[in-house]
């Protein structure tokens, strides 16, 4: 198992480099560079723009620029942001943590709610509770997340209990440890619910489908015929088999969560990576974009790896050499 994991990690390195090269090429294919925006400022001369370009080696050939970035990568330097004139790593670090908190919270929330709901709906197939669940699934799937976020923030402004976006209250540093946790949870609630609702709707449907599929199998019939209690049939025999395909899905979700929350982050003033990335891509702040892509790529690979390991753990038929 350990050698398998090491092998996977080694394979990941060229994969990540290829990904960064592709990102670099795509960024370069769009016209102009970051400092082009300055060209429309009547008070900035072409000489000044040339100085900025020289500072960031934009006057060198593209290949040299890329190789320089890769070389620094091995020293764990991710380059400088053109926008902020500081190392990319110092920009990303704090925001990555924030995004991770939000991602983790919504992942937990999604799975803890969606799985039981899916089982419930499968067991009570075509009963009124199943119908209500499927109706609400379609509703939440079709509401855009930014709209849902706006509605929840509006409700919060009417209720006065929850904060209107942000991650910490102004007096955060003066709170006790427990108070700080509570404060964070309060701020987490709205963005977590917004991000989770659509995924809950989807995951719940998938879980229901898988469960129904398994419940039709003959070994379930056998189990029931043996006279096993219904709970045992469902939670012991059916569930373990129904959940397998979802574990692979879990791996993909992990990477999607980092980038997929940008709109929610912006509306809820959550200081995450998403909004930083969005402006970086639009402004062509290349190294910031490439470094964030790298993070996303690493998470995707880690997610896949975790999924594979979990799969081996839950399904005795799967073994890695």
């Amino acid at each position, binding site marked *: 198992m350990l050698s398998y994991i090491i092998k996977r990690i080694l394979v990941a390195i060229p994969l990540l480099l290829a990904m960064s090269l592709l990102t670099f090429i795509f960024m370069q294919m*769009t*016209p*102009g*560079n970051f400092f*082009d*925006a*300055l*060209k*429309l*400022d*009547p*008070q*900035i*001369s*072409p*000489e*000044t*723009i040339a*100085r*900025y370009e*020289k*500072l960031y080696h934009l006057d060198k050939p593209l290949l040299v620029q890329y190789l320089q970035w890769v070389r620094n990568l091995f020293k764990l330097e991710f380059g*400088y942001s053109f*926008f*902020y*004139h*500081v*190392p990319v790593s*110092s*920009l990303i670090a*704090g*925001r990555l943590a*924030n995004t991770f908190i939000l991602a983790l919270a919504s992942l937990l929330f999604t799975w803890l709610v969606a799985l039981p709901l899916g089982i419930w709906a499968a067991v009570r197939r075509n009963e009124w509770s199943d119908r209500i669940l499927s109706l609400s699934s379609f509703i939440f799937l079709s509401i855009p997340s930014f709209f849902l976020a*706006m509605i929840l*923030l*509006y409700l919060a*402004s009417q209720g*006065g209990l929850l904060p*209107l*976006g*942000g*991650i*910490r209250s*102004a007096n955060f540093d003066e709170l006790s440890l427990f108070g700080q946790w509570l404060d964070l949870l309060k701020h987490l609630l709205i963005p977590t619910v917004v991000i989770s609702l659509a995924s809950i709707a989807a995951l719940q449907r998938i879980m229901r489908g898988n469960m129904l599929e398994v419940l039709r199998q003959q070994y379930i019939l056998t189990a029931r015929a043996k006279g096993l209690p219904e709970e045992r049939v469902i939670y012991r025999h059916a569930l373990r088999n129904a959940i397998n395909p979802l574990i692979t899905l879990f791996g993909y979700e992990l990477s999607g969560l980092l980038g997929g929350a940008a709109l929610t982050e*912006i*509306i*809820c*003033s*959550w*200081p*995450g990576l998403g*909004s*930083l990335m969005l*402006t970086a891509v*639009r402004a*062509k702040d290349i190294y910031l974009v490439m470094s964030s892509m790298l993070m996303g790529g690493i998470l995707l690979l880690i997610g896949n790896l975790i999924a594979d390991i979990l799969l081996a753990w839950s399904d005795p038929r799967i073994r890695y050499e």
Partner: protein
Amino acid sequence: MIAQISGYLKQQFFSHLKFVFFLFLLSFFLLQTHQANSTTKYGGQLVIASTSDPKSFNDIMAKETSTTMVTELIFEGLTKMNAVTFKVEPQLAERWQVSSDGLTWTFFLRRDVVWADGQPFTADDVVFTFNDLIFNPQIPSSARDVFSIDGKTFRVEKVDDYTVQFILPVKFAPFLQGMSQLILPQHKLKQAVAEEKFTFTWGIDTPPQEIIGTGPFKLVEYRPGERLVFERNPRYWKKSSEGEQLPYLDRLIFLIVQNLDTALLKFMDGELDHYSLRGMDYPLLKPLEKKGNFTIYEVGPDFGSNFILFNQNRGINPKTNEPFIPFYKLSWFTNLDFRRAVAHAIDKKKIIDILMNGLGYEQEASMSPSAQFFYNPNVIKYEYDLAKAKVILKQAGFMDRDGDGIMEDANGHPLQFNLYTNSGSTQRVQMAAILRHDLESLGMKVNFHALEFNTLVGKLTSTFDWDAVILGLTGGIEPHFGKNVWHSSGQLHMWHPQQEKPATAWEKRIDDIFTEGVQELDENKRKILYDEFQLIVSQQLPVIYTVLSSTIFAIRNKFENLKPTSYGGAFHDVEEIYLKSEFIKN
């Protein structure tokens, strides 16, 4: 004592009612004295929102609003533009004098200024800011462009600890205004410059206590994406006109709120003290003024212009040896009648109604009316009149000759062209849609494309392959700072950039005005020159103006000494603003 008074009262008036009235007066009097004792202008905080994080705390390297709104609180210049009167006032320099040839300016610095860490502020800091930072060839800075004339920089010399001399290569009218350039501390930054690290110094990852200025506030906390917190600088030098130590407010808090709708909710909820309105917010907020205890200020037109312009580039593409645009198109665009007809086809009122909810201004002159002194209201105005536009086009030889609904020129070329704008600006895209509708009802065929900003910039500044563009530029109160747009050699002279010598007589005249205007130190003579420039632009229509948006903001009724203006915004001179006494907690 009250018993004695009441006894006395009963003897005097024998009236219960009057006794009650007196007690009421008495209590009122007592309350008054109590209030007078606790009345203080000091304390409290101001909370506002910013849509984006500051890009840096390094004022030399980064110059856009999210950065300058922070650095202008921490640092100060030798002079300061009064945002109400537009007169240059002393700041770190207490007075100055200019030699009779207008080239040597001597500034006498205040002696009571210290940096927030207690170090004295001296002439060395001024000389350092100019010679070692702004004029340093290793450091890219747009300030350098402001302080060089035709590539020649100013000479800055220390006379003594509190006197600095600036020697200019030629006379430069906006010099005093330019001296509002923020001065940075030599003792903090000397080493970074010596090690050639200044370009990456004082980025947003710097601990706040490192950022030392002379201004009224100092940065105490910055959490990226969340908030900036400023506290009063107890060493601040400035006193109010009554001799009170400034600033009055204890703290300023800038919350980073990217989404304007979220900011609106926060304002309505009372978390923010200020909100900049979009046209569409007005009908929502106006009825809530009383209930929400705020006031909406409409302080006049913005400075950012929006216009349509046509490519009049007569040049030849050196790569292909072809003209940048086909000759027949060039002949339309250089035809003044064509541009006049377009000017009459712009329905400014409709644009204001649809895009700005009726809150906007029709723009006629190159300077915004908010520029006051240099704004020329007597320029040629083009009212919306499609019939008149048609007549003008017909007289110029444009008419529908083959009955397909599209006009042709005298040589039979259909009047068809591309119109570009940048896709990032929803307002301009919508404006283009309205404009296109009117131009098509005139009988032109307009192909509209919204382009990515960088693509558009590339077309305007290097490939020159475009027909018509809708664009906007930021403006200000000083006409000379638009020289790069109006002088025929400028690279932002977009309809025909970087000309070796002016292609037309009117462009020549504008060149002369800008050369003369910057050397003229008499304000009134400058005014005559720049009025003529605005008149020529309105006659010749190299750019055809559309509308200016209105500057509107809502401020909670908590503050005294506010003087909101379009130029300075809601809280300029923030050190003089204080809270109404009922909002100060003791």
